[in-house]
């Protein structure tokens, strides 16, 4: 290659790069340094590696339902009796969840339970179709679409075998026999509250939103919920004083990010917005209010609307 050509190419590339820097500088929105790219690639790889073995050891739906029922029965026995108001709220949750579950891929006997604990800002699901929602979580909500996003997320954990694969993995790790349900009852409730892998969470978010939309709810209910989670969760953004500081923070963030089960609210929010853009759901902004009506007779909620 002639030197003149080299120089021409050199200056062309230089110009391109400088243009890139120039456009970057003109960009008004500041981007943050993070290890998200590394974490995402790692999570994808991890998920892809584990999917095939899970599919090859899949248990049948009836077996899954049986295991789920036994687990739910054990856990519901630990939950205190609901007040009429709570019972009415639970009925409200069941109504919304029932509407969503009709559109799930797998037709399982979905059941929805309220845990009357105002400090529990969480929801979780069990294999076979049982969904539990904490009262603290409901207190965060303002619209029914937000409730639908949470329930859709949990339904998709069940629908996409996340719950049962977890049982499979746990049984494999502890040497339990999946055919003997009693052994599985050793798994504490906190195990299910702890969440899933990031890719599973993302998938549940994504599919849950689709379920929500198909049931007539707004996808912005999920966006609202993620924004609210972001407010509750202090996300760390890297603001380094020097390169060494940035490197150390990145290393720390990468480690904590890898071992973190749930993705950051910002990541979930970004995915939700991406999905809305991809599916062109931008016009589905109207949301229904969170509305529970009930009547009490002799200390019992006899009817809810």
């Amino acid at each position: 290659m002639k030197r003149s050509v080299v120089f021409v190419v050199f200056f062309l590339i230089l110009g391109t790069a400088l243009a890139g820097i120039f456009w970057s500088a003109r960009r008004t929105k500041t981007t943050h340094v993070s290890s998200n790219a590394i974490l995402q690639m790692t999570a994808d790889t991890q998920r892809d590696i584990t999917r095939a073995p899970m599919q090859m050891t899949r248990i049948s739906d009836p077996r899954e339902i049986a295991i789920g029922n036994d687990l739910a029965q054990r856990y519901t026995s630990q939950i205190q009796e609901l007040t009429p108001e709570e019972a009415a709220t639970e009925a409200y949750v069941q109504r919304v969840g029932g509407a969503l579950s009709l559109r799930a891929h797998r037709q399982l006997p979905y059941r929805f339970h309220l845990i009357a604990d105002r400090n529990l800002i969480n929801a979780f699901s069990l294999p076979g179709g049982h969904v539990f929602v904490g009262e603290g979580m409901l207190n965060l909500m303002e619209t029914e679409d937000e409730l639908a996003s949470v329930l859709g997320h949990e339904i998709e954990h069940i629908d996409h075998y996340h719950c049962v694969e977890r049982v499979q993995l746990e049984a494999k790790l502890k040497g339990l026999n999946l055919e003997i349900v009693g052994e599985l009852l050793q798994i504490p409730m906190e195990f299910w509250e702890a969440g899933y892998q990031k890719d599973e969470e993302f998938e549940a978010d994504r599919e849950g939103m689709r379920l929500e939309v198909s049931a007539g709810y707004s996808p912005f209910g999920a966006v609202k919920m993620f924004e609210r989670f972001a407010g509750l969760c202090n996300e760390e953004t890297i603001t380094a004083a020097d390169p060494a500081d940035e490197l150390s923070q990145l290393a720390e963030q990468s480690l904590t990010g890898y071992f973190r089960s749930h993705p950051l609210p910002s990541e979930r929010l970004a995915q939700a917005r991406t999905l809305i853009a991809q599916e062109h759901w931008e016009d589905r902004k109207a949301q229904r209010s969170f509305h529970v009506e009930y009547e009490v007779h002799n200390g019992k909620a006899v009817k809810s609307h």
Partner: protein
Amino acid sequence: LKLSDLDVGWLPQRWWPEQNASFGAGDVLTLESSNRYSQGKPMPFEVLLLVMLGVLVVAAPFLAISALVRHGRLRKEFEIFKADRTKQHGEALRQIAELKARIAEARAGHVGAEGEVKSTDAEVRKETIPLMPAPRPNIERAAAPPPIRTTPPAASPSTPITEKKIEPTLPAEQTPIISPAAKSDGEVKPAEARPKYPPVTIPNPASPPTPIPLAAGARVWTSAPTSAFRVAAPKPTFQERMKTVSTIEELLGANWIQKIGIILLVVGLAMFGVVELGSIGAAGKAAVSFMASIFLLGGGIYLERRDRYRIVGRPCIGGGWALLFFSTFGLYHVEAMRVFRLGAVNLTIDCVLMLIVAVAMAVHTLRYRSQLVTGLAFLLGFTTVALSQDTVYSLSAGIFLAIGLVVIVQKMGWFELEVFGILSSYLNHLYWLYRVIGINGGEGHPFAAYHASVAMLFFYWLVFRVSYVMRKVKSNFEEHISTTAAILNMFLLLGVMKFQSVQPKLAYIALLVLGALEFGFGQLPILKRRREAFVVLTVAGAALMLAAAPAHYAYKDIVPLLWLVAAEVFLAAGIAAKEVVFRRLGLCTGLLVAVYLAGVNFPHLLTARDSGDQIILDSGVFFSVSAIVFYLNVLGIATRWKEFFDGSLDRRILICHSYAGAFAIGAAVWAWCSNAWTAIAFAGVMLVLAGICRRWNLPHVSYQGNLFAIAAIVRLATFNYDLTKEYGHISLRIITVSIVAACFYGISRRVTVREAGHALASAYLHTTAATTLLAVLMWYEANTGWLAALWATFALVLALIDRRFELDELRWQAHALSALVLARCVRVNLYAQETWHGISVRLISLAIVAVIFYAMSRIVRMPEEWRERDFHHIYSWSASGLISLLIWYELQAQPMSIAVAWAVFGLVLFEYGMLRKVAQFRFQSYVVLVAAFARIFFANLTVGEPGEVLGPRIYTIVPMILIFYFVYAQLSMEEFPEERKIGAASGISLPFKSILAYLGTATLTALLYFQISQEWVVTSYAALSFALMGVSLALNRRIFLHQALLLSVGVLARGMAHNIFGASYFTGGDWLRPYLILGCAETSLLASLFFAYRLRNQQEVRWDANLFQTALSYVARRPEQMQFFVAFLLLTFMLAKKMPGGLLTISWGVEGVLIFLFALALQERSFRLTGLGMLLLCVGKVLAMDVWGLQTRDRYLTLILVGSALIGVSVLYNRYRESIRQYL
């Protein structure tokens, strides 16, 4: 001192109040009170006792010294006497032996026949006897010598002499002797215990004489004393020690005790006469006193004539004379004993009488030639005078005593006695002064007899000084004693005069006069032969005259000037008279000047300087003149009259002068130059001293120059750096520090003497100091973001100067400064926020530093070995590091642009390295490019908004990809041995070219991963693989083939894990999406076979390598296999995963047929076998599963289609059998 402060519990209670009153400091005795004592009230006994004890204590050491000296002399005389006696005794013995021998010879004459034998024996005796050792002086202590045995010849029976043993004595020194017998046995015994000497046998006429060989005799008698010296002196025995103790005891008991007794007796008698005999009248007292003295004197004379009591008699004589003198003295002077009426005539008479008595006393005591006796007499005389001091004229007796004593001293040469006389005279006078003016001395207490007292003291001094000058000394010891007396005379005179001095401020007159007199005495011709006396008097006189200056001008600055004049006068006199004493006096006076300057003048100067900034003229002049004189002494006088200052002491003193001059000039600078200019003045002095050092080759001046250099630095550090004033719009700090630094630089190569070993080190230190000063100055002047740039520029200048003039130390300073610059940049400049005309100072300063560092890497001098190892590129690495950091800091607003900027920087570095063919710049570019690549994973890949296609991710990463490939392209154009060398040196193969190519592809792959939706990533990778194959073919670069194959593996993994098994369980239900995505990927892979077939067989299979490398080389040799089988596997598993159970067999059958046809078309056996294998798999599946599990319609459809496929394939086989055989 108050007695009440003392422990007086042992005193009777009744004495106590009186003592308290008489010794009280406030109860000073006046003349009246002293008269009161003399008028009948006796001095308290205890006071007197204490005084006497004091006198005794003072006199005791001198008496003891005198006694010991005397004892030594007597001992020596005794030894000489004993030696004479022993010699005489030995002579007598020899004569006896000779006589006996003659008798024996006479007897032998009768025999006749034995004449020859006799003569032989006589020869033997003659030879033997003289060889006998000298007789031993102390017969009692001498060991018995061996008898001299003369053996008669056996053949001469006519000599009937019986054996006689002669026992010659040996000298005392030979006492520890070893007999020959003991010596032969190795025994060492004391003389007393040793065996007798071998007897010298006198030839017996009755027996034949045995001739004694002369040599044997000599051996016997000469070996004994020689061997004695080989043996250690025996320790004194118990008896000897006891003898020593007894001697001391005898000395005390028989000598000292009685002397003390005599003293007490005389004192007691004197007191008795003065105090207790008041009732019997003055004449009675005098008579009693005279009688007592005559009795004592007569008794003493009587006893002295008897040997046994001589030792008692002599002190009695002394005491008698003393008492007689006192009695004579008391006739007029002592009130209680006064016989003569007061008046001049009577006084004269009494004085004459006292003189007569003193002379008589001296003359009489001289008969005994005993200094002790004479001294005792004089002691008693002085004591009696001390007891009766009524007026100053009472002390006149002391003068006579002094004169008498001096006469005796001169006559007898008893110079020790003079010491005693000096002490007694002055202490007597002091005691009288104490009684008159009290313990506080004469200051403020004028007394009437002052002038008389002065005259008397002067007379004492004169008498003893004349004595000192006039005497003739015979030994060094006498000279030393005389010196002691001379010094004592001077000091006691000064002390007593000081005590009585009414106006101490006039003391300088006394000092001057006395000094002049002493100095004058010293120059008398009579002292020409007494060097010590000359030195003592000259030095003492000079010292007194010099002391007059501070005595008159106490703590005034003029003193050193006067001394300086004196010093130069002495020095000049010493040179003119060729007298070393004068020269050294001058030199030492100079040192005195220096001490005074440092101790007095300099503190005054400091005080004055603290009070203001004005020039301190007088101190400046003083110190300047002093400095000039000191240096003139060193440089002028010592050089002009070199021969006078060759002694090591003179040289040392001159060096001290030199340092004194340095101190004076430093102080002068301090006086002349205030504030900012002091440091410059110090530096100027440093220059001058360096010039002097160079001109006269004086190392110590060089050291002084160094001291001034340090002073200049310290002054700059403590004062000048804090200056804020300006001088003509230029900071005074800049002016002063720059001047000093320039001085340091200028003088650095001329600061030591020529050929000095440390010249280079000194030069280094000076230039380093200058550089440090300037660097610190910069810190003060620009302690902002610009400092690093300033320092860097300074370092560049130093490096340039070093390059031009080859001044080695400058480059090291440049290195040190550069290290500082680097630290400063990292710690300060990178965080600088200030701006200059709207531009970041951080940007400008670091850019300047980086440019300078790059320049330094080119121009800085280094040892060739270092340069060959590219050590100079530490600078370029630092610069590149700084720029990289600068980019990071400057682009913090948009972190995603940092990676691009780094890549651009890497590209520029690379191009520069290529252009200048400098490998280190290319290496730096590799590092920067790798950093840029790593950076995109944290800042670039995840940027952008959802759905944004041409977002920041694209326009920041794509240029980087281009850069990576561009760098690779240039690297692949030619060979770079440096890169290979790095790999060889590190032991790790670092294929930079390949790394760059992989970085480009990896960046592109990462971009695709994040830019394209997850399902389509596999397709994009497959397309990239296709493209890379094409590029590899087009550019003939196998590295892209390798990348394409790697990507194909990635496609397989990604397709299997993500698109087939990893995708959502429920999103793959439709046919379109997964088939489309994977179909596109497979199509790309199969399309790449077009390139793959052209690329195959271009690389040899490495059969000799390990299995993995062999497999890799095989894959690279047959790339179509990888591309085909990846597509095949993806298609097969996709069908297995997505197709319903019945259609799977059909689809696999169709796939097998298509593969078969494809293989036929490409004439590839492995593909054909794959197609056949797929068909066989379908058959197996039909038989094992489909026949039993499918519904009826699916079952027959499956059977029909699979069967048709098999038939079709069979037909094709048959048709193309020959062709297929050719491919096999």
